[in-house]
């Protein structure tokens, strides 16, 4: 399982040797060799130094919902590669590779689940799939999830792990920002609550649309939250970034989120929120 490394060395890479899953992985933040099973038990947080690894969408779902409660929603088919885009690699090939690497059809997984027995509609982005970026398919998935939540009158939970809009789909990707906000409007019209969970990373067009419009916004400890990536800001403005810039803490201090939650407590925290939101019997 290739896991990409954060520029700021807070995230770590899992060593892959040969075709078999490795037993041991190395935390590049602290150098510790970790038994893979132990890391899984610790929800991909380094047991020694606390560095956060990426969670795949499936792992994220497993970590949040009541065991066995997730039922995936079928997603509408969309035109693939609407621009006929090719950079160093044709976009179709990039999609095929991402599918093979992740076992997912696209960067979003959506479904129904229970969290501490509260029914929810859940949408989770997978950063391994072209950076969790939002193109037409992801826009459709997030719209469909919200429409489902609105219809079924279940709270909508959205776990963000995305670099932003998918460049390979051009303006069509940009306009998915409007589409997912149209979905947001459906929730509002039906009085259905929306809880966002911002993780690493929550940036660009996903943050500048649905990601910022929740009723309750939680930030996972170790999240990166910002419109523009740190490198873009440094390059464009020449500004020196203050320590802790765009971290979950920074977001909390600047009033952008309601709470910062360690990964191990996220499920519990969501349960608390859902408990308060649950309709009276």
């Amino acid at each position, binding site marked *: 399982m290739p896991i990409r490394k954060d520029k700021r060395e807070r995230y770590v890479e899992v060593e892959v040797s040969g075709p078999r899953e490795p037993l041991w992985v190395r935390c590049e933040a602290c150098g510790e060799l970790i038994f893979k099973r132990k890391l899984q038990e610790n929800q991909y947080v380094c047991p020694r130094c606390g560095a956060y690894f990426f969670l795949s969408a499936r792992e994220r779902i497993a970590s949040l919902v009541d065991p066995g409660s997730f039922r995936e929603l079928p997603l509408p088919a969309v035109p693939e590669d609407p621009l006929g885009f090719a950079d160093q690699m044709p976009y179709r090939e990039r999609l095929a590779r991402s599918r093979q690497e992740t076992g997912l059809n696209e960067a979003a997984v959506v479904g129904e689940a229970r969290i501490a027995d509260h029914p929810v509609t859940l949408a989770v982005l997978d950063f391994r799939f072209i950076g969790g970026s939002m193109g037409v398919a992801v826009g459709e998935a997030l719209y469909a999830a919200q429409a489902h939540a609105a219809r079924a009158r279940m709270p909508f939970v959205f776990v963000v792990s995305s670099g932003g809009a998918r460049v390979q789909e051009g303006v069509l990707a940009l306009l998915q920002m409007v589409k997912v906000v149209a979905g947001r409007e459906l929730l509002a019209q039906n009085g259905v609550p929306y809880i966002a969970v911002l993780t690493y990373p929550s940036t660009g067009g996903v943050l*500048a649309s649905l990601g910022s419009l929740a009723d309750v916004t939680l930030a996972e400890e170790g999240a990166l939250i910002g419109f523009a990536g740190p490198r873009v800001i440094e390059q464009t403005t020449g500004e020196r970034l203050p320590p802790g810039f765009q971290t979950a803490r920074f977001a909390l201090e600047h009033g952008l989120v309601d709470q910062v939650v360690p990964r191990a407590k996220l499920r519990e925290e969501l349960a608390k929120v859902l408990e308060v939101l649950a309709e009276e019997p």
Partner: protein
Amino acid sequence: MTDEERLKVLEEKAAELRRLAEQDGLDLHEELAVLERKIAELRKQLYLDLSAWARVQLARRPDRPSGLPFVQALCEAFYELRGDRVVGDDPALRGGLARLGGKRLVLLFHHRGATPEEQRASRFGMASAQGYWKAKRLMEVAARLRFPLLTLINTPGAYPGVQAEAHNVAGAIAACIWTMLRHPAPTVAVILGEGGSGGAVALAAADRVLMLENATYSVISPEGAASILWKDAKVAPKAAEALKLTAHDLHELGVIDEVIPEPIGGAHTDFSATVDGVRRAVLRHLEELSRLSLDELLRARYNRYRHVGAQGPGA
């Protein structure tokens, strides 16, 4: 040799012929006529078949009609409203009450500035969080008054800065999109120059989206795409082509409603013709939209964005 360069060479040759004819009294008017016809053809060709990259350059020209002078020429009256009421006022994204073709509306526009001081202050039209919070406030003014909303877009993108992040520029853009989507009156967006990413879409969730012929609308700058996807900033012209960011491309993709023609040579060659073209198009669309009931208007707008990109082969 690029077409631009070829055109320049031909123009120089024509000037030389004219000089020769004058100095030496030679009868060169046939040769001159041929040359001038060639020049006219090339000019037309050049501006009809401009490459995406050439249009990016036109869209970015500092003398491109846009900003406050454009608004003042466009409207019978404009009264500027300032400030986001929380942090400050952003000179890169401005707006106010306006009267256009007799209609009352609220107008929002990017202002890149004409002088170096203005350009510095407005960061070349890159609005920060205050700009987008102000835009949201003005959209709410328009909603309360049931005024149509007109936005004139010309920005490289929202400003990427430490203060912008601290003041939640992402949240401000999201709030603009949501507010505009719900607007209880007609909305028209016109991309005059650069329609840069989130900073543009924040003002573009409209009933009608129009573009000047050489304007661009893109998820990322060609330079940004080149350096991220090709790892080579020099392939920006290729990236511009691949991104399908021109008005004609986007009209073909069905994401914009109309391409407003520009004077041959580009909008900067004729300010008032450009303003007139935009005014006519905007008034026509406002007129069409005014015939819809509020319910029809919102349903059509909502359906447009709910389905964007999902139709076509494979769907």
